[in-house]
């Protein structure tokens, strides 16, 4: 089991999904229950209201007028209908035009008002128990009897409640089943989606420490994003590691010859008895040591460039500032050599995105190369356009052709006057690090080497 280090495991995804699905089911269940109860109540009310109106209509048709008196020959069928709500108590009365009760229970509640319509439903109480009533009006226009006769019949709510409950119960059973299926599918989907994660951690754990090749695994989109980032991170690590390795190899390669040469010279000097010749040898050792110093500077500079390529944040900068800085930094060198550098910049900013320090280092190397290998007059310039370029020109012939083909590829041989070719390698690395390239050309007797970068045209 690897040490978790700074990784803090929070609630598992499965638990989170289970919580979310559970919450949805509970909330949904509450909503569905409320809806089902409301619907059940509504359905039960409509069903049993029809029963009431049927019974009332039955009774209304049984009203007859005899000798100017309304008489109700109460039909059994009305009560058979009411018996469809088997356990409910029944209350009824028939009220004449003057408000007297013709038959039935005088305690039966009346509606608040008799509307113009034929029937009205209303809630009431039958001996303290809630009940539902209908009042149905039949109008008579006989010679001996005229006016409305109202049939009022109601019953308690047991059957309605039973029906509403059974409707809600059925809805809940369906919901429960649906919930169980939902939970099952959610569980399966999450389990399936998370399966690549242990595969990735297994693959990483099984790797050799030096293996930084990208992971090639199929994964859902969200996990694939993480995998891509991980692969990018490993690629950067790989580049750094390769570059560091190359740097060490190069440094060893570069330093071995001059150090060996100095040692041989020092031995010679030690065994030389002639003071004049020893002085010459010592002078050569000094030269060699100075060259070695420059070489070390360049190696370190290159190491810094490589390091910065992956670490330094890219900022927006003006290439003219870089050019000015380059001139300032190499001022001593040119004054010493008695050569003048002409700065060729416009009054418009040349904006690029990159690392000012790396770019300045590259420009410095181009300029010192021109100083050491080229012919004055030497110019340093910045131009804008489709590509922004930082260029150096001199009146020399340029480097040998093979080196111009692959600038800075390798720099095994020491150049004339201590030049090593590392300078160009640095420029190339900076160019690549900024997504640009090195361009070399001869024009009108001049040799121009340019560091071309993706520009930001105005």
């Amino acid at each position, binding site marked *: 089991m690897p040490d978790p280090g700074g990784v803090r495991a929070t609630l598992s995804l499965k638990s989170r999904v289970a919580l979310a699905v559970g919450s949805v089911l509970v909330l949904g269940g509450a909503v569905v229950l409320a809806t089902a109860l409301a619907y059940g109540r509504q359905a039960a009310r409509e069903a049993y209201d029809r029963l009431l109106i049927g019974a009332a209509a039955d009774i209304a048709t049984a009203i007859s007028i005899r000798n100017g008196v309304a*008489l109700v020959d109460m*039909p059994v069928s009305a009560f058979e209908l009411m018996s469809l709500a088997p356990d409910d108590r029944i209350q009824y009365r028939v009220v004449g035009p003057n408000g007297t009760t013709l038959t039935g229970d005088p305690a039966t509640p009346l509606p608040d008002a008799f509307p113009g319509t034929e029937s009205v439903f209303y809630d009431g109480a039958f001996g303290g128990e809630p009940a539902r009533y209908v009042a149905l009006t039949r109008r008579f226009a006989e010679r001996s009897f005229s006016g409305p006769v109202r049939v009022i019949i109601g019953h308690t709510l047991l059957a309605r409640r039973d029906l509403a409950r059974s409707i809600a119960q059925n809805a809940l059973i369906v919901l429960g089943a649906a919930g169980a299926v939902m939970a099952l599918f959610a569980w399966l989907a999450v389990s399936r989606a998370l399966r690549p994660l242990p595969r990735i951690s297994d693959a990483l754990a099984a790797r050799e420490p030096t293996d930084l090749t990208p992971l090639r695994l199929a994964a859902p989109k969200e996990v694939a994003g993480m995998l891509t980032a991980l692969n990018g991170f490993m690629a950067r690590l790989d580049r750094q590691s390769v570059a560091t390795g190359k740097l060490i190899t190069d440094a060893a390669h570069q330093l071995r010859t001059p150090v060996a040469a100095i040692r041989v010279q020092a031995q010679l000097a030690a065994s030389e008895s002639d003071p004049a010749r020893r002085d010459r040898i010592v002078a050569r050792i000094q030269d060699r040591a100075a060259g070695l110093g420059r070489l070390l500077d360049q190696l370190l500079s290159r190491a810094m460039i490589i390091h910065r390529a992956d670490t330094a944040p890219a900022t927006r900068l003006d290439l003219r500032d870089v050019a000015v800085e380059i001139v300032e930094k190499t001022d001593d060198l040119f004054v010493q050599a008695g050569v003048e550098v002409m700065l060729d910049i416009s009054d418009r900013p040349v904006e690029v995105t990159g690392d000012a320090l790396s770019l300045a280092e590259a420009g410095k190397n181009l300029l010192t190369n021109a100083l050491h290998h080229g012919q004055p007059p030497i110019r340093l310039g910045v131009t804008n356009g489709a590509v922004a370029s930082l260029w150096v020109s001199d009146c020399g012939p340029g480097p040998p052709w093979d080196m111009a083909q692959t600038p800075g590829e390798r720099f095994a041989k020491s150049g004339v006057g201590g030049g090593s070719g590392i300078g160009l390698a640095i420029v190339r690395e900076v160019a690549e690090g900024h997504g640009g390239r090195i361009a070399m050309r001869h024009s009108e007797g001049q040799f121009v080497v340019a560091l071309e970068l993706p520009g930001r045209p105005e």
Partner: protein
Amino acid sequence: MIRIAVLLVCLWQSAAAQTTELTADFGPAAAARTIVLRSTTDLAVLRPVIETYVAARPDTRIVYEQWGSNDLYSLTAVDCRNGRAGADLVISSAAHHMIDLVNEGCAASYASDATATLPPQLTWRDQLWGVTREPVVVVYNRDLLTPEEVPRSRFDLLDLLRPTDSRFAGRVATYDIEESGLGFLLAFSDSLEATTFGGLMEAFGRSGSIATCCSAEIIDRVASGEYLIAYNVLGSYALQRARQDPRLAVLAPEDYTLILSRAAMIPAGSAGSGAARDLLDYLLSQDGRAMLEAQDLIVRLGEGDGSTIEVFGPVETLERPVGLNPTLLVAMDTDKREIFIRRWRDAFPQLH
């Protein structure tokens, strides 16, 4: 060990309503539990059942009150309206009265294994239970009727009454529906059952039939030969008498025979409801039913000694149980009663 006190109350002593016909006390006076049982059932019929029950329960005392059905109804309704319970168990043969009381919310609910054995048409709202099973029969005098004259059905009865010089004129008796709640219920049930009822009433009226009050009286007079035929008599009384009197014959009409169940309810808020429940459970139990059957309160047509009750044709098609359901409320309707009783009075003008 059973102390029995019987108190006869003379009916004629108080013309006012709501007087018990009879009260009796069963079990020790100092018993822990007392059940006040009000019923329309003749004590003589129910006595063995109650005695057996009390004998097995030394801690229970039963005060039995025998009432006329109309009185029992009005007494219980008044009790209910006043929010008190004068009885712990009420058993009435006038099922429509009991349905009305339950409908008014006067009954307490109770459910047990015993009540669950009842068929649905013999129970309502877990507040009313049909405890007996009594066919409504025709009683005739065996000596005075030739076998050809025996009215197997209502149609036969109509035929007997049709001739203007019929010897049955004035010698057929039935319940007075105004005096007896049971009589009203039976007549009302007849009116729902078949159109023969109209013809029968018309025939009764034309032939000067008798409408009178009580089962015992009617049966006695059939035995003595004053009446030849009694129509719509409750089977329990008829059978009991017929067993002792060879002159009496009992038959179940073959067009249809009403089957009546005495309905029991526990008044809401009664003090002895626990004991009343126990008594109800007993009446519905195997033992209780066996006792009721021995007293002819549970009668199965076409079973056992077929000699006691004459049955013609298949039993399944002739039985018409009077179900305990809200349709009986129609029998309680003021206008309906008025219409019904007016027809009745038209048929029996001599009563008024």
